[in-house]
């Protein structure tokens, strides 16, 4: 039964701030894409270092075709309205391959870059991050898919009944809406939350399509996955729509047994139902990603556990996640 669950693989590719950042990132993205990985993450914080992660992935979007693109996007000192518009636009320029990894900015140094408010306690930051995720979904849904009509007879470009104010009131911000960006190709780009820290776990259970965890054993991973699934259910979600990946920094030079042993571990934990897949954080970008794709992925394929090529075109396709119907379309249908 568990063997029918597809295995999902992803990798981190942040590659520094140098003038060749675009070229190096593109080279890593192509490695990952040739191996048909589900998606790439590009880490970031509000304070950097280096270039804005979403910008880097937008830059390589036209030069890749299939791999999902997931920049870290912070929610503490940014405007929710701008953030959702940028993520939706990444989905447009990548033709349905965008996600975002939500992060918060807990430090005083980050707060002083903006100078508007001191850094609140971490729990409040994750509460706010959850609200940003919620309002982003509302704004992505605020244009129904068929809002644009171009009806020459009546002179109307859009059907305004399919554009919605979101009237969101959070604890620290409010947004009127609708978005300026039409509904992106995936409907809702994929939301990733790093749930390795307990403070982020409830936000992950509530809002994530993909949660990243770290664990020292399969048992620990299984317990975390079960906890996230329970949380999802408590928030009224289908746990089947929450994909849990083990995220781990790997130095394949010193990893005992090498890339093959890593494949065994992934296969074992996945087969046993502890995780839905693996997110590689290479200790050395070019070297470890190259070994991972050429050896670990190859081994997993030999065992029939991982796709040999992309079967869909969007990141949601890769992850087996349904394209959501706009929440406002549903409301309209039941009204």
């Amino acid at each position, binding site marked *: 039964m568990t063997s029918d669950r597809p295995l999902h693989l992803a990798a981190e590719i942040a590659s520094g*701030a*140098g*003038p060749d*950042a*675009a070229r190096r990132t593109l080279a890593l993205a192509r490695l990952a894409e040739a191996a048909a990985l589900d998606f790439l993450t590009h880490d970031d914080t*509000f*304070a*950097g*270092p*280096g*270039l*804005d992660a*979403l*910008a*880097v992935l*937008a*830059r*390589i*979007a*036209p*030069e890749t075709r299939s791999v999902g693109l997931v920049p870290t996007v912070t929610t503490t*000192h*940014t*405007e929710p*309205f*701008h953030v959702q*518009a*940028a993520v*939706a*636009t*990444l989905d*447009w*320029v990548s*033709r349905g391959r965008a996600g975002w990894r939500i992060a918060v900015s807990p430090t005083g*140094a*980050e707060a*002083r*870059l*903006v*100078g508007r408010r001191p850094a609140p306690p971490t729990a409040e930051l994750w509460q706010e991050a959850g609200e940003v995720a919620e309002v982003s979904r509302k704004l992505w849904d605020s244009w129904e898919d068929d809002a*644009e009509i*171009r009806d*020459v007879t*009546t*002179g*109307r*470009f*859009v*059907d*305004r009944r399919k*554009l919605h104010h979101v009237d969101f009131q959070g604890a620290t*911000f*409010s*947004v*009127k*809406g*609708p978005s*300026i*960006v*039409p509904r992106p190709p995936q409907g809702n780009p994929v939301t990733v939350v790093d749930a390795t820290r307990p403070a982020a776990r409830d936000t992950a259970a509530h809002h994530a399509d993909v949660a990243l965890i770290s664990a020292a054993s399969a048992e620990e991973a299984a317990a975390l996955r079960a906890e996230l699934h329970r949380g999802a259910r408590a928030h009224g979600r289908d746990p089947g729509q929450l994909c849990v990946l083990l995220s781990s920094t790997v130095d394949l030079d010193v990893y005992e047994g090498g890339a093959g042993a890593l494949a065994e571990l992934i296969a074992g934990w996945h087969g046993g139902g502890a995780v839905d897949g693996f997110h590689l954080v290479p200790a050395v970008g070019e070297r470890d990603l190259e070994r991972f794709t050429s050896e670990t992925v190859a081994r997993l394929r030999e065992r029939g556990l991982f796709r040999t090529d992309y079967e869909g075109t969007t990141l949601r396709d890769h992850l087996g996640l349904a394209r959501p119907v706009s929440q406002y379309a549903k409301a309209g249908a039941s009204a």
Partner: protein
Amino acid sequence: MSRKQIRLAAHFPGVNSTTVWADPRSGSQIDFSSFEHLARTAERGLFDFFFLAEGLRLREHAGRIHDLDVVGRPESITVLNALAAVTDRLGLAATVNATFNEPYELARRLASLDHLSAGRAAWNVVTSSDAFTGENFRRGGYLDRADRYARAAEFLGAVRELWDSRSPGGEPGAFAHSGPQFRIEGSFPVPRSPQGQPVVIQAGDSAEGREFAASAADVIFTRHSTLEAGREFYADVKGRLARYGREPGDLKIMPGVTYVLGDSDADAQERAAGIRRQQVSPQNAILALEQVWGRDLSGYDPDGPLPDIDPDPDSTLVQGRVRVADPVAVARKWRALSEAKGLSIRQTVIESTGRQSFVGSPATVAAALEEFVATDAADGFILVPHLTPGGLDDFVDQVVPLLQERGVFRTEYTGTTLRSHLGLPDPVWKGGTP
């Protein structure tokens, strides 16, 4: 002696009342392929830069979302980063509001674009006046006119300090800025970008706008007008530069212009009239009237006479768009025109609003463009095509070669950065410890 060179930029024809969507050739305003086509065409034409406008709230009319023009656009900087992958030399200009952003984050995003495009980034600084747009933002609220420019000027100054906080040698630097609007400090994470200071554009014609541009901008995006008014504006703005220690060539004056080409001048005039009818649908004519009158005029026949009631000067009917300054005077002018020529509502609106700037054969248009630049009414133009994505094709194919023959437009890119295309001096590094 070499002749004064024309600068050219292309404005993406998206959310804009001049954009014609009810035409079989009109494509998507949001698919990346439309942006790619326009940008590649502009680069084929050796343009200086590609320009994206911004909107932060969908326009509303009588409390309802305006539905007669193109609606919906991408977030500018993200699209430009993607366009950096499919173009090589073209400058990439994003309009970004100084009211609803913060200097540190925007400085980082623009420096990132400058790196990812190898030195082709530009920022068009705009400000916002209304609480209506503020409803989408943490910042919220309303800034009066003077405060908008005070904030924009300090915002731009802070952004420039951040860009300069990294030395040309690459050492990470600290910054600290303290003013009435912003008190920020820290370390700027992006290495000095290829242009050092990305190009800054300022849009606006007011006295405050002119002064702001003269003090701090590289390009001013202005309204197109007659040759005479253009020369007056040009002289006024260039005359303000000396007091900031700047040369006349340090600020390029580029009006936004529309154009219609034809096989002959008569053919172009005929096409222009057809495009005006597409731009001003019967529904749009009533809407244009309501924007002046500030009243619900939906009961009027667009093919009938103008209303004889007067405008409501205190109307809040229109939101998210600049209000007509003196509605009573405009109404009086429109009525006089309608009576003198026997025009209907729609004909009056077509006649009174947004006529195309340059209409004629390619030779006529090329000559007119050159005249504006040669006689110091402009340094160049930001072209606003009326069709997405093919609206720039004919200009690049038919007018650019004539400008090149006249010796007033480049025949190849000689530099790699936008600053070099525009002939702007290398920025002087003003960094160092705060």
